[in-house]
C-alpha cells in the first residue's frame, strides 16, 4: 500500500494492527496451554514473551512513515476546536489579518499591473525614447528637421523612428467616434517588434505620399466598433473625413504608447504637416538599441550628436537625453505606489502585533494544558508545532478572506483610479498577486505565531504544573505584551502622520487659486478636420457660427474659444522676441502662446491688470495685437506700463494691448510661465490650419450643467453634424482631475490610517484587559489597603500611556526620517509638518486612553474580597 493510501487508512490500519498483535498473543497462549500451562499463567507468559504491546504497536505505526503528517493533522483538528471555542477572539484575529492582507494584496495588484508587469514588447529594456530639454522644460519633442538629422546620423539604434499622438474622428461605422490615435514612422513600429494579430503592421512602404492612408486597429477598437470581424482587413473606414484602409489589428495586450490610443497610422515625414512645419516640435523619437551597444555608448553618441546639431540649428540649443521606455510610463507612478506599499506594510505589521498579543495572552492562559502535555512526554517541538499550526490556521483563514475582500477592492480601485493612474484598469487578482497574498499570509502567520509559541512552550516546559498563575516567568510575557503595544503605537502613529502629511498637502493643493473663475464654466473639445475645413475661411465660419449661437443660449453669459485650454494637458511653447530687449547670444526667450477669442478673459473671469481685452475688431486684417500675462510684463517692464510695447513670435510684430493676471495652466502646483495671448483669428493661415483645428468652446452661464451641456452640443451639431464633440467637461472637473492622483493617494492613506487606529485601539484594549486580569490580586490588595478607586484607574491608564507614548515618540522620529523620501509627493508642507505630527500623536494618545478606559474601570470595580481569595 502506498504512502498516500496509508495516510488515509489510518483508522483501519490501526484496527488491523491491533487484531494482528492480538492474534499472535492468543496463539502463543493457546500453544502454552496446549503444553499444559494453566490458562491464566499461559496468558501472562504469552504477554511477557510478546513484549510491551503498546510500545510495539507504536513502533509499527512509526514504520508506516506517516507519523509526521498524522501529528500535524491531529494538531490541525485540535487547533480548529480551540479557535472555535472563543469566537469573538478568533473573529477579531481573523478580521485583523484579513484587513491587513486585503490592503496589501490590493496595493500589490496595482504595483504589479503598473510597475512589475513587463511591457508588451519583446526585450522592452532595449527600447529608448529621446527627449529634448530647453530652458528647464524637459520632455520637449523633436521637430521633423531634427528628427531627419538624427535619423541619418545615429548609429546606436537598429531601428529609430518617431511618433506623435493625434485626435481622430471615426465615421461611417455608427455614431461618429472621437478617439486618440498615433502617427508612427515605420521604423518606430518595427522597433516595438510586435507582430499584428490579424493582417500586418505598418511597414516602410506605407509611409509614402499617396500610400499612407492605411490604419492598424487596436484590439479594443476592433471589438467595440468592428464586432471582432476577422475580415476587417482591406475594409475602408473614414478618419477625419478621409478614407483609410484597415491593414491589421494588434493583439489584445498591446498598447502604445498608452491604452487610450486606439489606432496607428503611418507618419509620412516627406509630406503633409511634417513638411509644412518642419520646425514644429511634436515628434517623439523612439528606437531599439543595437544588441552590442550599451547605454553608456548611447549617451556618448547622444551628447556628440546634439552638440553637432546645435551648431547647425540655432533653435536646437538644448540638451538631449534618453530614457528607457519603461521609465517614461512608469517613472511618475513609482514613488506614490511604493509609498502606498510601505503604508500597507505598516498596517500588516500592526495587525501582526495585534494578533501576536492575542495569541500570547491566550498562550499564557493555557500553561496548564501545555504542562500536562509535557508531563505526558510531549517534546517542546510538538508544543511549538501546535501553536504554529494554530497561528498558521488563523493566518490562512484571514488570508483567504483578505483575498476575497481585495478582489472587491480591485474593482473599486480601477474605477476610482482610472483618471489618475493610467493602466490601472488592467489591475487584477492574477497569479503573481495570489502568490504574493499567500506568501505574506504565511509570513504573517510565522511572524505573529513564532515568538509567542516559543515563549509559551519554553515556560510550560520549565514551570511544569506549578500551582497558581503568578510567577517570575510572567514578567517576560508581560514585557512582550508591553513591547507589542509600543510597536503598534509607533507604527500606527507613523501611518497617521503620513496620512496627515498627504492630507495637509492635498488640502493645500486643492485650495490654490487657479487665477480664474472655474465655476459654471463648461468646455467642449472639437476638432475641425482637413477634409471638411481645407482653408481658414471655412474654419472661421464655423467658429464664428458656434460662438454666436452659443451666446444666444438662454442663461449663457459669456462664450469664448481657445486652442489650448488650461488644465487640458496641452500647451504651445514657442520662442519670442521683445522689441528693445534683445536676447543673449545663443539663447532665446520662450513663452506659451495662447490663441483665444475675444470673450476668453470674461468667460474665465481673468482679471485685466492693464489695458483692454481683445474685441471682435481684432480679426485677421486688423493690426496684430497681443496680451501678455503679469509674469512676462514684470520681466521686461517692471516699472512701466507694457501697453504699446511690441513683441513677436512669428514674422510680424504685435502691439501689446493689455496685461492680465497670471493663471495656473497645467497644474496647480506649478509656477506660471510667461504667456502671450493672441486673437484666434489673427493666427497666420499656415499656423491656423496646423494648430487651430482643435479648439475648446467655452461657455459661462447660470444654467445647470446638464442643460448647458446639451444646449452646447446642439449648437455644435447644427453648425456641423459630422463633427464629434470629443469631451464636454465642466472646467471645475478638469481642475480636480489634474490632482486626482493626489486625491486618490490621500483617500487611501486616510482609510489605512483609520484601520490602523482601530487596530491600535483593539490591541491596546486587549493587552490592557489582559494585564489588568493578571494583576487582579495586586489591585485587590491595593484597594483593601485603602487606595481609592480613582487611583486604580489612574494607575492603569498611566501604565498604558507610558508605553503608548514611548511608541508614539519612536514612531514620530521614524516618520520624520522617512518623510524625506516622499518629499517629492508633498506640496507646501514640510517633512515634519507640525500640524500632521501633532494630530497623529494626539489621535493615538486619545485612542490609547479610550481603549484603556473600560479595563481601567473594570479594575477599579474589583472586589478586594473575591480577588484575594486563593485560587
Amino acid at each position, binding site marked *: *500500500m502506498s*504512502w498516500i493510501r*496509508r495516510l488515509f487508512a489510518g483508522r483501519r490500519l490501526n484496527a*488491523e*494492527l491491533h*487484531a*494482528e*498483535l492480538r*492474534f*499472535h498473543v*492468543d*496463539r*502463543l497462549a*493457546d500453544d502454552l496451554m496446549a503444553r499444559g500451562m494453566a490458562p491464566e499463567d499461559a496468558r501472562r507468559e504469552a504477554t511477557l*514473551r*510478546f*513484549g*510491551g*504491546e503498546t510500545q*510495539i504497536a507504536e*513502533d*509499527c505505526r*512509526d*514504520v*508506516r*512513515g506517516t507519523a509526521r503528517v498524522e501529528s500535524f493533522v491531529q494538531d490541525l483538528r485540535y487547533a480548529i476546536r480551540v479557535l472555535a471555542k472563543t469566537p469573538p477572539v478568533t473573529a477579531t484575529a481573523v478580521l485583523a489579518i484579513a484587513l491587513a492582507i486585503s490592503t496589501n494584496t490590493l496595493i500589490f495588484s496595482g504595483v504589479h499591473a503598473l510597475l512589475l508587469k513587463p511591457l508588451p514588447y519583446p526585450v522592452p529594456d532595449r527600447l529608448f525614447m529621446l527627449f529634448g530639454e530647453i530652458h528647464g522644460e524637459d520632455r520637449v519633442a523633436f521637430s521633423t528637421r531634427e528628427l531627419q538629422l538624427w535619423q541619418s546620423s545615429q548609429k546606436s539604434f537598429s531601428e529609430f523612428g518617431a511618433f506623435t499622438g493625434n485626435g481622430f474622428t471615426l465615421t461611417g461605422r455608427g455614431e461618429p467616434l472621437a478617439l486618440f490615435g498615433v502617427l508612427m514612422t515605420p521604423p518606430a513600429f518595427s522597433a516595438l517588434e510586435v507582430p499584428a494579430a490579424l493582417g500586418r503592421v505598418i511597414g516602410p512602404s506605407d509611409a509614402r505620399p499617396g500610400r499612407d492612408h492605411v490604419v492598424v486597429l487596436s484590439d479594443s477598437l476592433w471589438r467595440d466598433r468592428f464586432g471582432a470581424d476577422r475580415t476587417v482587413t482591406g475594409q475602408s473606414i473614414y478618419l477625419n473625413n478621409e478614407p483609410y484602409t484597415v491593414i491589421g489589428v494588434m493583439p489584445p495586450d498591446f498598447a502604445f504608447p498608452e491604452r487610450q490610443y486606439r489606432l496607428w497610422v503611418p507618419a509620412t515625414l516627406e509630406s503633409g504637416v511634417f513638411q509644412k512645419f518642419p520646425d514644429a516640435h511634436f515628434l517623439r523619437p523612439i528606437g531599439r538599441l543595437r544588441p552590442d551597444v550599451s547605454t553608456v555608448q548611447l549617451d556618448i553618441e547622444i551628447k556628440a550628436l546634439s552638440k553637432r546639431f546645435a551648431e547647425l540649428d540655432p533653435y536646437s540649443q538644448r540638451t538631449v537625453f534618453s530614457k528607457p521606455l519603461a521609465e517614461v510610463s512608469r517613472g511618475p507612478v513609482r514613488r506614490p505606489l511604493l509609498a502606498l506599499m510601505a503604508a500597507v506594510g505598516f498596517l500588516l505589521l500592526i495587525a501582526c502585533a495585534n494578533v501576536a498579543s492575542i495569541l500570547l495572552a491566550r498562550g499564557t492562559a493555557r500553561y496548564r494544558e501545555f504542562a500536562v502535555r509535557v508531563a505526558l512526554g510531549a517534546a517542546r517541538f510538538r508544543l511549538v508545532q501546535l501553536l504554529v499550526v494554530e497561528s498558521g490556521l488563523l493566518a490562512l483563514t484571514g488570508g483567504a478572506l483578505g483575498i476575497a475582500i481585495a478582489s472587491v477592492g480591485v474593482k473599486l480601485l480601477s474605477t476610482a483610479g482610472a483618471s489618475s493612474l493610467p493602466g490601472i484598469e488592467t489591475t487584477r487578482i492574477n497569479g503573481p498577486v495570489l502568490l504574493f497574498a499567500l506568501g505574506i499570509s504565511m509570513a504573517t502567520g510565522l511572524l505573529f505565531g513564532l515568538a509567542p509559541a516559543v515563549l509559551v512552550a519554553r515556560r510550560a516546559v520549565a514551570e511544569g504544573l506549578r500551582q497558581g498563575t503568578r510567577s517570575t516567568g510572567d514578567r517576560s510575557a508581560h514585557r512582550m505584551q508591553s513591547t507589542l503595544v509600543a510597536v503598534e503605537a509607533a507604527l500606527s502613529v507613523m501611518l497617521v502622520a503620513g496620512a496627515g502629511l498627504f492630507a495637509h498637502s492635498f488640502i493645500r493643493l486643492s485650495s490654490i487659486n487657479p487665477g480664474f473663475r472655474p465655476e459654471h464654466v463648461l468646455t467642449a473639445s472639437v476638432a475641425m478636420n482637413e477634409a471638411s475645413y481645407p482653408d481658414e475661411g471655412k474654419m472661421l465660419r464655423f467658429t464664428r457660427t458656434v460662438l454666436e449661437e452659443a451666446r444666444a443660449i438662454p442663461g449663457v453669459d459669456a462664450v469664448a474659444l481657445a486652442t489650448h485650454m488650461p488644465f487640458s494637458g496641452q500647451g504651445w511653447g514657442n520662442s519670442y522676441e521683445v522689441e528693445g530687449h534683445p536676447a543673449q547670444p545663443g539663447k532665446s526667450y520662450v513663452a506659451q502662446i495662447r490663441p483665444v477669442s475675444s470673450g476668453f478673459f470674461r468667460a474665465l473671469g481673468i482679471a485685466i491688470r492693464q489695458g483692454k481685452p481683445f474685441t471682435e475688431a481684432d480679426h485677421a486684417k486688423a493690426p496684430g495685437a497681443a496680451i501678455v500675462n503679469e509674469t512676462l510684463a514684470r520681466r521686461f517692464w517692471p516699472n512701466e506700463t507694457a501697453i504699446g510695447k511690441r513683441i513677436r513670435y512669428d514674422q510680424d510684430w504685435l502691439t501689446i494691448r493689455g496685461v492680465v493676471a497670471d493663471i495656473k495652466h497645467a497644474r496647480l502646483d506649478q509656477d506660471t510661465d510667461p504667456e502671450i495671448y493672441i486673437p484666434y483669428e489673427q493666427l497666420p493661415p499656415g499656423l491656423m490650419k496646423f494648430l487651430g483645428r482643435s479648439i475648446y468652446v467655452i461657455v459661462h452661464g447660470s444654467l445647470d450643467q446638464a442643460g448647458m451641456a446639451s444646449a452646447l452640443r446642439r449648437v455644435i451639431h447644427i453648425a456641423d453634424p459630422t463633427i464629434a464633440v470629443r469631451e464636454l467637461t465642466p472646467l471645475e472637473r478638469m481642475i480636480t482631475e489634474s490632482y486626482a492622483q493626489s486625491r486618490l493617494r490621500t483617500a487611501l492613506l486616510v482609510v489605512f490610517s483609520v484601520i490602523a487606529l482601530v487596530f491600535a485601539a483593539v490591541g491596546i484594549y486587549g493587552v490592557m484587559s489582559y494585564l489588568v486580569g493578571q494583576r487582579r490580586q495586586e489591585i485587590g490588595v491595593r484597594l483593601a489597603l485603602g487606595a481609592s478607586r480613582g487611583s486604580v484607574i489612574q494607575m492603569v491608564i498611566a501604565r498604558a500611556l507610558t508605553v503608548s507614548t514611548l511608541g508614539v515618540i519612536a514612531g514620530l522620529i521614524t516618520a520624520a526620517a522617512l518623510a524625506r523620501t516622499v518629499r517629492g509627493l508633498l506640496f507646501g508642507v514640510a517633512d515634519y509638518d507640525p500640524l500632521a505630527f501633532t494630530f497623529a500623536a494626539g489621535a493615538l494618545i486619545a485612542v490609547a486612553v479610550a481603549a484603556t478606559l473600560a479595563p481601567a474601570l473594570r479594575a477599579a470595580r474589583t472586589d478586594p474580597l473575591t480577588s484575594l481569595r486563593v485560587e
Partner: protein
Amino acid sequence: MLILKAVALGAMHGYAISQRLQQISRDVLQVQQGSLYPALHKLENKGWLAAEWGESETGRQAKFYRLTKKGRKQLDAESANWERLAGAVSAIMRMSE
C-alpha cells in the same frame, strides 16, 4: 533477510514466522516476539512482502505475508552478499591458524 527467507517457502502469518525462526535457529535467536512486527511492516511497505487477511488453521482471521517478486530478488541479493561476507570471514579466520 531472515524474515524474507522464512516466508520464501510460502505465505505465513506473523506467529508462524516467529515460530519458524525460533525453530530454525534452534532457539539461538531469542528476541521479544513482538519486535517481529515492526520489521514485517517495514518489509511490507518496501514492497518485498505482500499481505492478505485470511483464515488461519485455527479458524481465526490472521494477516498472511508472502514474498513478492521484488522480495525474492532482494532475498537473492542479500543471500549472495551474506555468502560472500561469510566466505571472507571464514577465510580470514582460517588464515590466522
